[in-house]
């Protein structure tokens, strides 16, 4: 057993504090320590995106982040975006536009898409396809995922305009 490190982090707005080996991978911290099972394990090598979370405002693949690197970080997972009764517009769009089949890629896809739309609130289809190219979906063929993101962008832009 290696030496444990004192870790603090905010996960979905909640303060967490624990001792962990610095090499513990963030995906295990979330799934096994904190029972946050929305981010999934697909490849554990940074290639599939099933484990995507937001760490200090950036999309990261939690399977290749050491918990030590996440010390003091603010982390948002799919669970922090919305609840079943109060979904984020992206969650609603993936649900309504059939942006999922088996659903295993969905939490990572949506979490990544929230950042994509922050980076580029009005993406073309082509920009969505390239902006999401770090996330594999083996089921949908991406067509409905792209549609969902487009629909959510329109929805979010309309809401922003209405608020202004």
């Amino acid at each position: 057993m290696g030496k444990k490190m004192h870790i603090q982090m905010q996960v979905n707005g909640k303060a967490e504090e624990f001792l962990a080996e610095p090499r513990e991978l963030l995906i295990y911290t979330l799934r096994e320590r904190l029972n946050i099972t929305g981010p999934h394990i697909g490849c554990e090598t940074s290639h599939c995106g099933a484990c995507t979370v937001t760490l200090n405002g950036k999309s990261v693949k939690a399977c290749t982040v050491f918990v030590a690197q996440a010390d003091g970080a603010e982390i948002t997972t799919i669970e922090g975006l919305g609840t079943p009764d109060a979904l984020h517009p992206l969650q609603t769009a993936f649900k309504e536009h059939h942006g999922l089949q088996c659903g295993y890629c969905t939490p990572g896809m949506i979490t990544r898409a929230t950042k994509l739309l922050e980076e580029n609130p009005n993406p073309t289809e082509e920009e969505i396809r390239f902006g999401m190219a770090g996330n594999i979906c083996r089921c949908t063929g991406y067509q409905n995922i792209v549609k969902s993101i487009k629909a959510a962008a329109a929805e979010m832009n309309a809401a922003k305009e209405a608020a202004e």
Partner: protein
Amino acid sequence: MSIKGGVHQDLIHDSAAKHVSGRAEYTDDILEPVGTLHAYLGFSTVAHGRITSIDLSAVRAAPGVVEVITADDLPGENDVSANGMHDEPLFATDEVLFWGQPLFAVVAETRDAARRAAALAEVSYDTLPHATDIAASRAAGAPLVTPPLTLKRGAVKPAMAAAPHRIKGQMEIGGQDHFYLEGQLSLAIPGEDEDVRIFCSTQHPTEVQHVVAHALGVPAHSVTVTVRRMGGGFGGKETQMNAFAVIAAVAAKRLNRPVKLRLDRDDDMSSTGKRHDFLAEYEVGFDDEGRILAVDGDFFARCGFCSDLSGPVTDRALFHADNAYFYPDVELRSHPLMTHTVSNTAFRGFGGPQGLIVAERIVEEIAYHLGRDALEVRRANFYGPGRDLTPYHQQVTDNIMAEVVDELVATSNYAARRQAVLDWNAKGGIIRKGIALTPVKFGISFTATWFNQAGALVHVYSDGSIQVNHGGTEMGQGLHTKVAQVVAEAFQVDIDRVKITATTTDKVPNTSATAASSGTDLNGMAALNACEAIKARLAAWAADKAGLPAEAVVFGTEGVSVGDKVTDWAKFIGAAYMDRVQLSATGFYKTPEIHWNRDTGQGRPFYYFAYGASVSEVSVDTLTGEYRVERTDILHDVGKSLNPAIDLGQVEGAFVQGMGWLTTEELWWDDKGRLRTHAPSTYKIPVASDIPREFNVKLASWSENREPTIKRSKAVGEPPFMLAVSVLEALNMAVASLDGYANCPKLDTPATPERVLMACEALRSAPAPAKVLEIGE
């Protein structure tokens, strides 16, 4: 007024709200019971060899290790074969037959400890010569893993000899890894007596139950297997999870603690079966119009070290080697070859795609030979009146191929776009274009006739809520949604009243794999059958009470009417309960009219056919071999769709997965017989930026199944996978333009940019190769 969520409606997936909020539970998300241990495997490091010594002392001594399990520790037989051929040991004992074959299991307090310990085994081998591919296997005279099949009609030799034109060719067709996004895993929880409960990501809970019972040496009634959902299956979880479930179960019973086994992705890709690679050798005879007169074909398959599903997979390749075309005289032979690789298995299409693609290649060869648009040749050869007998002697009675193709030709503007492609290429630039339209006809039913049965269990609770259980498993295809729609429709209640629960062997026994695209056909009918039984009891009771005939009871959207009195559903059910009406029923279904005699190669193995067609246009950089798909148009037949939105998703997903198979997904073994593409870093799966830039997908909304299937729908899981063949043949055309379409470039698959470049180079550097062998020349 109609109910919410009946059949033929665009309903969202029943778990969609849970998926988008991260709350859908997969097997890996189940809270592990206190005391759960973790198992991992030790794998062989040679492709073929004899184990001379195996020293596991360091494994046993490693921190956290609780137990090491070898073949000697198995209470039952060291065999996980599901087909009764006893050729698939759980652990290799004497002879190792592929790189990555499990040798032993280690159980530890954590998964990490188990994985680290497994790597400490000291194993030495006398290596033996290995044959990992088809050519090496044939050269070595390797045995067949299962009896071959011949399909034959007419007399192919004289017909071939008499044909005005003949072409001989061959095609190499690559395999494919499933890459279900959720890998293989099992959690086994021991119970009293001989009981064990297994949570497992499987398409075939009944088979897991039987294989585990066999390995434990206990009756099937002691083993319960449950799966709520899978993160993708695609055939890769039809038999391939058996070994992992057995290890978890054996360890759990031995240690009397829950045991979980989740494979690392690299090990998952190395030690589980894939789509079969094929080599096809064909000869076709045809006339001046491009009409096929005779086809003779040999289909060699890389089956791996044991039989698994290779028999039915190679059979299905032959069943689809005609695709949509009539072969007047034909002989097709399968050669299921043993290779020193992991045993290949089911994968969406189940051998069908590998057969179908050869039919398409044959047509292309004819078209290049005659200098025609391949579409003309395709149309000239479609099944039709008087030309409707398949090589397995089933008559094609539901043929809508020409209608589908005609409509797609019009909506995709095929003729004008083909001319534009020809004009573009005539300018002679570096970027060349290609366009191709390819059809699909796919037979629906398990060819193992007894698999075509299903069971369901429907409970109506006294508050009017309904729980449904059936033998099918949910892997994202929307099966549970469709079955719930069928049940809602049957009782004329809103779908919110219907809950589908996890598939489990203690609710519905003796189920078939959710495979062969048959999930909805079979389980939808079984569920309907159960609903009808409950409705009949309710109607008899209500009619009797009212002194009316049973026909006076009508289940309607407003409630149940008896004569002119309408009662709200929940009240009606409450009253029925109080009057002691049985509100639970089992349902059963078996597909009618199908039969198949493998010895004679004759029968009606398929209840019906599903049809579809696609047009793809590509651009190829002929200096690098890189390409992209500019546009794909699809028209696909799902009969009268139960849920068009879900079916469209299936078509799109299948097409892109098929495109991956034919373009970028390359499995590569090194000279030591090691699979080197065992992670998505080296094995290229399509991502969002790889799909056609314009992608128009439609269902043939006018179609209706001519057979009385569930609400006249058709199966959708596998057939659209083969629509991707249009991408391959479009690439072929772009390359062919380099020498004025004088030669068919015969791209093998996957047509990686490297392969495309090599094909370009071959045409550029070689003087036009001898055209083709022709009679009288």
